[in-house]
């Protein structure tokens, strides 16, 4: 297994459902052809540096995955078939993949993505102890001010 990174560009004037369907489709292709998807990175709509097929905007999605040459072959074959894809590019990141490290990375990514969902339940229990947060708040504010002043000093030093 090798580690790859693949970027594809969806025509920018297509609705979000189309973009989502490409994500689903290609993620499935990766996982059904001996690949393991590590993460997806959504760059959103960007202005293209030049016109492609008459459009000036494109939706960029990056997939980070581990797989074999067959995975990449199948993925790129499908990129070429799909009319919504205007550009694609696959790069090999490394030749060897440590499966354990890979699983750990996937877990870490999932956890990084989870907190927005996991945080609200965790944040709710503390409110009963409302007395506690208020004493905490004043010390927190000066520390942030300190941080701000610390941030400022280097810049002034540079200016001088």
């Amino acid at each position, binding site marked *: 297994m090798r580690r790859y990174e693949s*970027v594809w*560009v969806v025509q920018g004037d297509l609705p979000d459902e189309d973009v989502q369907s490409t994500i689903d489709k290609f993620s499935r292709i990766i996982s059904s052809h001996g690949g393991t998807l590590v993460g997806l990175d959504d760059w959103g709509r*960007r202005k*293209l*540096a*030049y016109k*492609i097929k008459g459009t000036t905007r*494109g939706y*960029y999605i*990056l997939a980070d995955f581990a797989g074999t040459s067959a995975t990449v072959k199948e993925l790129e074959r499908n990129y070429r078939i799909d009319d919504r894809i205007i*550009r694609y*590019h696959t*790069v090999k990141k490394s030749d060897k993949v440590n499966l354990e490290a890979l699983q750990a990375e996937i877990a870490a990514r999932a956890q990084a993505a989870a907190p927005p969902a996991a945080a609200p339940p965790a944040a709710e229990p503390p409110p009963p102890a409302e007395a506690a947060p208020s004493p905490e708040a004043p010390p927190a504010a000066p520390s942030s001010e300190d941080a701000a002043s610390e941030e400022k000093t280097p810049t002034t030093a540079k200016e001088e």
Partner: protein
Amino acid sequence: MPVMPRRKRKQFYVRRKVCRFCVDQALSIDYKDANTLRQFVTERGKIIPRRISGNCARHQRRVTRAIKQARLLALMPYVPMMPPP
């Protein structure tokens, strides 16, 4: 024939350029990072030669490759859209 006064040769101060990627190991060359790569192309979108950019051979190769990859994905232009002169 009168001897022409030899013109004073213009002084060139050649500051030794150092490869910034060698100096700062934290800097990475990545085709996705078009803003960094933009420092290595001219206004016309041409790749700046090593002679001028000061990159070492190894890093220049990587920069060149990254720029070409970025162009492919329309992250960087082959020929910038410029207003007519």
